């Protein structure tokens, strides 16, 4: 079982007070946790990669906990989430897919049973590649006010033999959300969609 070798971590917190409209009564806060790890499968084709998902679980939990802490420490304040990965040039997109289970599992675990699928994206790219991590409501994917995305990246990552893993959480809707659709107050909470 390959160990997870971390080179670098980055936590970003954004606080949005307005975007040209009225001041938000409670500023929207969004945070991203980024971790740069060595890609144990880089530079060659490896058939059996699945077990690395288990190796990534503790890292995912640590990232999810640090996001909750960065957003004030109360998991109940978290309303949106998303995840993503950037695989360095000596790896394949499939290596990024290893993040789906441990990244999603970690956030659901920390948030106490969030129902919606964790929106995600991934790509292969060089150092400084930016990733627009999609964000949706944690309990109902169709909540329109919470559709959002957070751009993340690190100037010197991922190197060719690295993977940049990302988790994102937010505390509410877009700051001036007003395009209708399902509201957070209307969530039934049965299927993770509505």
């Amino acid at each position, binding site marked *: 079982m390959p160990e997870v070798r971390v*080179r*670098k971590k*980055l936590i970003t917190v954004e606080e*949005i*007070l307005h975007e040209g409209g009225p001041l938000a009564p409670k500023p929207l806060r969004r945070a991203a946790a980024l971790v740069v790890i060595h890609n144990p499968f880089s530079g060659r084709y490896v058939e059996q990669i699945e077990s690395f998902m288990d190796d990534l679980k503790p890292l995912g939990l640590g990232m999810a906990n640090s996001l909750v802490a960065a957003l004030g420490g109360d998991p109940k304040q978290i309303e949106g989430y998303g995840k993503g990965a950037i695989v360095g040039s000596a790896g394949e997109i499939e290596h990024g897919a290893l993040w789906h289970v441990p990244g999603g599992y970690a956030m659901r675990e920390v948030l106490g049973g969030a129902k919606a699928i964790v929106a995600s994206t991934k790509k292969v790219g060089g150092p400084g590649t*930016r990733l627009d991590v999609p964000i949706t409501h944690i309990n109902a994917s169709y909540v329109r006010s919470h559709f959002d995305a957070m751009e993340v990246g*690190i100037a010197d990552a991922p190197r060719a033999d690295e993977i940049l893993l990302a988790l994102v959480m937010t505390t509410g809707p877009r700051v001036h959300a007003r395009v209708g659709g399902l509201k957070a107050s209307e969530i039934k909470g049965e299927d993770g969609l509505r």
Partner: protein
Amino acid sequence: MKARIRKLATFVEETCNEMGRPIDPPTRRAAAIAVIENPCAGKYVEDLSELMAIGEELGELLTQRAVAALGIPGPSAESYGKAAAVGENGEIEHAAAILHPKLGTPVRKVLGKGAALIPSSKKRGGMGVVLDIPLGHKDAAFVRSHFDGMEVRINDAPRANEIMVAIAVTDSGRPLARVGGLTKDQIKGEDGLR
């Protein structure tokens, strides 16, 4: 608050490993950024004292946020730097008005000391422009292990009538510093240089 803030962001970066060598304890640095309305955008304003006053309040706010993000008391900070990016309807002189006359005093108050010049950079640019914040030791500018830079960017700032103001603070120098020069234990701390 004189500044009309749209958005605040913090970045905390931790380097745990470099070229296969563990960095223990990890080197850590934080940047705090405010995106504000530029009250002088779109016209020539002779007297920039409004921006100087904004610089003073942001000096305190952003330094407090940066050390809080690192979780250290102000006096434990080792190096610092500042930078500003002016949106396309402003002048580079607007960045100078924020950064140079009044911003430094509250920074030094939060950090306890700070005999050295605060290294700075500035530019005009569009949304997503990259700021490379120069870093130097806060008490002795010649400490070679602490010469560094931190890249920050916010994808939606600065808008044309905005200014993005950044302060970076570290609790350490470069990860594997080994190019000689003055070391931090040799600081005399009299003139801000050595």
